[in-house]
């Protein structure tokens, strides 16, 4: 939090002067006209025309919230720019794969099985004779969808559960925290092997739901801690003393002040969820054909790596870049929202 040092006058002027000058800390351009009239002291304010011409200065003086501060920080972070461009590209690929490829990932020609890259098919063919380029492009959708929706789901469920536990404390906290511990204790891969293998039709949404169910405790712990910290702040007591009820305290005062760590953990988790989907699919308990997924392709390519390395390298490379992009984004967001962690 910014200290009040710069606002405090150093000398010992008379009372009126002190309070008036401290009322305008480093903001000579703001409301310069009114100030001039009130103070009747030209030296404290700049000429009115200056405030209109120095747009850059005025821009810096506009009030900023935590989020605006974070956005400023992000805009100047090269890691954020690189990962942002990559992610925008990946999202376009995921939603409009047709823009990048005219062939279908499911149109396969067995006679071209495991053929290397040729003209028109830059990534070659897989064992079934399908175009690896097409499959890599179409595979983005599964990864991004699972990553984004699993993150949204865990963040939502985790924030609600952790928030309630942190706000009300006592028995409710004990119950929610123990439930979270139970889910937290299940190794996510083992859980996948056990639970997902008994579900015959595994769509994207089944995988998302599985990750949400096992992933929310991580967010809930962070949210609980953040809410407990925020709840003890003086402004919450002050709001209560002025008649705010529980829902208002939670939504208006506590939630916005505990969101930053939740967002940080959630963005970093996004990359992990994408790799988790690929891992589950690789193990054969994630997505199933005919869904196109990098994990499925990597799994199929692993057996024939020595004969046809292109089958493995392209989907694996795409997966790496995607995860890297999201983890870099998470890092940049963390730097912007929680500078102390750097």
């Amino acid at each position, binding site marked *: *939090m*910014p200290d*009040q040092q710069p*606002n*405090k006058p150093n000398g*010992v002027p008379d*009372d009126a002067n*002190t*309070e*008036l000058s*401290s*009322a*305008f*800390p480093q*903001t000579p351009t*703001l*409301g310069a006209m*009114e*100030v001039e009239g*009130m103070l009747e002291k030209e030296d404290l304010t700049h000429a009115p025309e200056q405030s209109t011409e120095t747009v850059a200065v005025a821009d810096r003086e506009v*009030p*900023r*919230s*935590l989020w605006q501060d974070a956005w400023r920080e992000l805009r100047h972070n090269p890691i954020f720019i690189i990962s942002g461009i990559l992610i925008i590209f990946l999202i376009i690929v995921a939603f409009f794969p047709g823009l990048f490829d005219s062939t279908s990932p499911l149109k396969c020609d067995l006679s071209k099985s495991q053929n290397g890259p040729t003209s028109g098919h830059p990534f070659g063919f897989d064992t079934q004779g399908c175009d690896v380029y097409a499959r890599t492009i179409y595979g983005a959708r599964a990864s991004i969808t699972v990553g984004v929706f699993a993150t949204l789901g865990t963040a939502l469920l985790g924030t609600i559960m952790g928030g309630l536990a942190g706000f009300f404390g*006592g028995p409710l906290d004990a119950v929610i925290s123990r439930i979270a511990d139970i889910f937290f204790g299940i190794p996510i891969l083992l859980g996948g092997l056990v639970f997902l293998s008994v579900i015959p039709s595994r769509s994207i949404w089944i995988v998302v739901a599985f990750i949400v169910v096992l992933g929310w405790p991580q967010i809930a712990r962070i949210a609980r801690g953040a809410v407990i910290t925020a709840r003890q*702040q*003086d*402004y919450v*007591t*002050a*709001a*209560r*003393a*002025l*008649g*705010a*009820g529980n829902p*208002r305290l939670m939504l*208006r*005062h506590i939630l*916005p*002040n505990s969101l930053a760590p939740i967002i940080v953990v959630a963005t970093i988790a996004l990359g992990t969820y994408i790799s988790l989907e690929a891992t589950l699919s690789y193990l054969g308990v994630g997505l199933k054909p005919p869904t196109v997924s990098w994990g499925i392709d990597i799994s199929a390519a692993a057996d024939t790596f020595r004969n046809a390395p292109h089958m493995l390298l392209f989907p694996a490379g795409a997966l790496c870049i995607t995860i890297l992009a999201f983890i870099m984004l998470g890092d940049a967001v963390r730097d912007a929202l929680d500078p102390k962690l750097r």
Partner: protein
Amino acid sequence: MGIHATEVTAEHGRGRTADSEDAPLLQVKDLHVEFRTRDGLAKAVNGVNYSVRAGETLAILGESGSGKSVSSQAVMGILDSPPGFVTGGEIVFKDQDLLKLSSEQRRKIRGTQMAMIFQDALSSLNPVHTVGTQLGEMFRVHRGTSKAEAKKKAVELMERVGIPAAKERVNQYPHQFSGGMRQRIMIAMALALEPDLIIADEPTTALDVTVQAQVMELLADLQREYNMGLILITHDLGVVADVADKIAVMYAGRIVETAPVHELYKRPAHPYTRGLLDSIPRLDQKGQELYAIKGLPPNLLRIPSGCAFNPRCPMAQEICRSEVPPLHAVTEADGAPIEGRGSACHFWKETIHG
């Protein structure tokens, strides 16, 4: 203790109740608050009595841990519970006992009929909302005002508490204001719905001295204008002298002395009060060692038996260690009663009359 103290309060009440409009706005009777901690029972407030009328300022004076803030939190109904519990007494506000109301009923009273101003205005304002939003929230929560209307009222309020260029500053965040200006905004928030009672918990402690005087003056002005009751909680004897009508001095969860403000400064009737007054630095004492009350404030988990002040008291006798002194009505040397004075000391006569 409880019985005697009530007698004193009742006596004062009878003298004034001829005029029904003069009935106290807030009357705290034999209030007990305890904290159930892992280390045991901390008795923070042990039978406190006071009353405030409309337009009157009561200063509650005491050092840290004397129970002055806790008793006012109990009045507001914002005591953290657990661990804090009100275990006895009555808080009568406008003829109804607040302790008998539901938490929802009490919430509706907060902000509209009684409001509180806190010590550190920076941490008492939410950093993620602009001051305009926070001021406007008062109207939106309690009055259901529209957003635009609430903002207009926020600007009016900011002008009312003397914030220049309010129209521009209404969209700024708390950290962009100076300490004095933030406390003015806190005051504006408390005043927004024109409550009948304001509790100010050390409103000037976090401010530097020049600004302190301005904020106190503003508070006193607004109190006069709206004819509010004001409870001023402080440990600063200087702040009290100018604005308070009467003073209650607290020690270890009890009121040890009550008096009209100038009476108290002129001739304290409790050794603790005398110690406090003697420890104010004075210009004519230059070069001498400053007086200090020896010892430490008592641990609330183990309050000394008898008079809680006895281990630190220069006048302590055997009776002070065994018997809790009731709040005696203080009289002149010839026995004539003094309006509003009480002292919880076995030797109040010796203290006040030498």
